[in-house]
């Protein structure tokens, strides 16, 4: 094999996974180039906005204080939305502020900072360049081609996101079944900081994350979200592609109708649209990650590998991206030391992942996507809850009943049976 290389490692894609991996490799003393197709890191990147940030402290000490993050999430609201009613589970806990557990981020602001950290660690950041193909010698990946330019390295890291053309070209990922994917459609709406504090009952840099299920997606599998930033809110819908196809609706219309919902519109009233965007996301990470994660000379990390977890209550991608970037860096460092870039030489990556919370969490939530396929999650349950509470609060001068009778009557009026309810409850408890 040729040892004539331009860099030890080429990382494709300046997202969280790619930047964490490049940073750790440079800090270990390796020559690393980070290639990004956007004119500047962050310009192509969009996330819902909640980053479970503890893992990043290990890479960037003082991350929450130093990085341009928006708000620290101390309040989580789960909202069951119906046409003309909603029921919220509203969880505020000061313990979520210390240590900081989750922050909202706007990627076009966060990622340039992270790229600067990479440069400081010695990474050569190369923006505005699209990688077109891998270079190979036999089975071995030996570099990349971008236009007429070729760059060679011992190891190439594909961190090129959910669409990963590189992983597909390498034959690692086949065309994904559309039920594994969802499209997120999001608006960022500017609101004065004081309005955000008053409207969402937060102070200082504390913030709220809403997760909506039910009518927010017009019964398409998926959900809605709303996150507070410093002086804006990010909100939108996530729609599973198979169900978007089946229901015959327009993704933009579903997004617009969510924002106009009587439970949502007051939260953004008087605001001004700053940006409208969208991003493909992964609904069944555990199924996707089941494929190989390496080829000789190639390692796949982050969204490109499928590291996303939708547990119904929390949606995680960026923290898993960071952890996969760290695991890859550790494994690649060992491979560089041994001079072995075969599948065997890179097998430390899978082992590192299995040792980390990534491997454990992917196992724990392996059944969650199947549970979330249950169509009753997106229609009947929200209605049922509203019926129960309507029975409690609506005093129509008929004699009152005990809570259990009220609930049973609501179940009877719904299309659900008690047996169905118990089975779903049990499945949910096991999956989540």
């Amino acid at each position, binding site marked *: 094999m040729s040892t004539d290389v331009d860099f030890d490692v080429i990382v494709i894609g300046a997202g969280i996974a790619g930047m964490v991996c490049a940073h750790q490799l440079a800090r270990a003393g390796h020559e690393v180039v980070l290639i990004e197709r956007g004119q500047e890191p962050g310009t*192509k990147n969009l996330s819902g906005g909640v980053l479970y940030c503890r893992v990043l402290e290990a890479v960037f000490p003082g991350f929450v204080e130093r990085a341009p993050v928006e708000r620290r999430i101390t309040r989580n609201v789960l909202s069951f939305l119906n046409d003309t009613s909603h029921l919220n589970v509203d969880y505020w806990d000061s313990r979520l502020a210390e240590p900081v557990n989750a922050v909202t981020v706007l990627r076009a602001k966060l990622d340039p900072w992270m790229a600067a950290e990479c440069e400081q660690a010695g990474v050569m950041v190369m923006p505005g360049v699209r990688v077109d193909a891998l270079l190979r010698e036999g089975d071995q990946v030996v570099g990349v081609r971008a236009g007429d330019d070729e760059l060679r390295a011992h190891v190439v890291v594909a961190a090129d996101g959910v669409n990963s053309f590189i992983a597909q070209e390498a034959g690692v990922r086949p065309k994904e079944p559309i039920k594994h994917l969802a499209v997120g459609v999001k608006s960022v709406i500017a609101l004065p900081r004081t309005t955000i504090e008053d409207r969402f009952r937060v102070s200082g840099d504390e913030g709220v994350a809403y997760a909506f299920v039910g009518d927010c997606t017009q019964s398409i599998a998926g959900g809605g979200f709303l996150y507070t930033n410093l002086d804006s809110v990010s909100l939108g819908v996530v729609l599973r592609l198979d169900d978007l196809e089946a229901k015959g609706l327009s993704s933009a219309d579903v997004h617009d109708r969510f924002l106009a919902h009587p439970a949502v519109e007051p939260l953004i009233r*008087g605001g001004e649209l700053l*940006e409208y965007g969208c991003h493909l996301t992964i609904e069944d990470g555990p199924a996707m990650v089941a494929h190989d994660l390496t080829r000789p000379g190639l390692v796949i990390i982050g969204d490109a590998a499928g590291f996303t977890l939708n547990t119904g209550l929390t949606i995680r991608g960026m923290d898993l991206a960071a952890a996969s970037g760290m695991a890859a860096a550790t494994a690649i460092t060992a491979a560089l030391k041994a001079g072995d870039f075969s599948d065997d030489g890179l097998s430390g990556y899978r082992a590192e992942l299995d040792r980390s919370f990534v491997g454990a969490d992917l196992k724990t939530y392996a059944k969650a996507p199947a549970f979330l396929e249950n169509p009753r999650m997106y229609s009947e349950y929200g209605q049922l809850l509203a019926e129960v509470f309507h029975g409690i609060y609506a005093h129509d001068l008929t004699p009152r009943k005990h809570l259990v009778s009220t609930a049973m009557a609501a179940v009877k009026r719904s299309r659900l049976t008690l047996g169905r309810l118990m089975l779903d409850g049990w499945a949910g408890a096991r999956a989540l």
Partner: protein
Amino acid sequence: MTPLPSITERLARNTYHLDEDENHIEVNQEIARRTGTGKLLVRICPAQVYGEAPDGTITVNYAACLECGTCKAMAAPGALTWHYPRGGFGIAYREG
């Protein structure tokens, strides 16, 4: 009333670096029509890049593309050629 203008107006507020020389999206009209992919693309694209002309031809306004890849994931085999714009071109999120 939500603070949402029309899709065209809201995309006009986004920042794009338009590649005048290269269109990164191509529809195979025949396959798109035969498989129903054409009508599907029109409704699933959040940026409404795709439209349907009166004669059934699928139009492509690639300048509006937000590069999510939903169309590529959902199109029938052969109906759509879609790749990222050349380096430095396309959507440039300011918020993200």
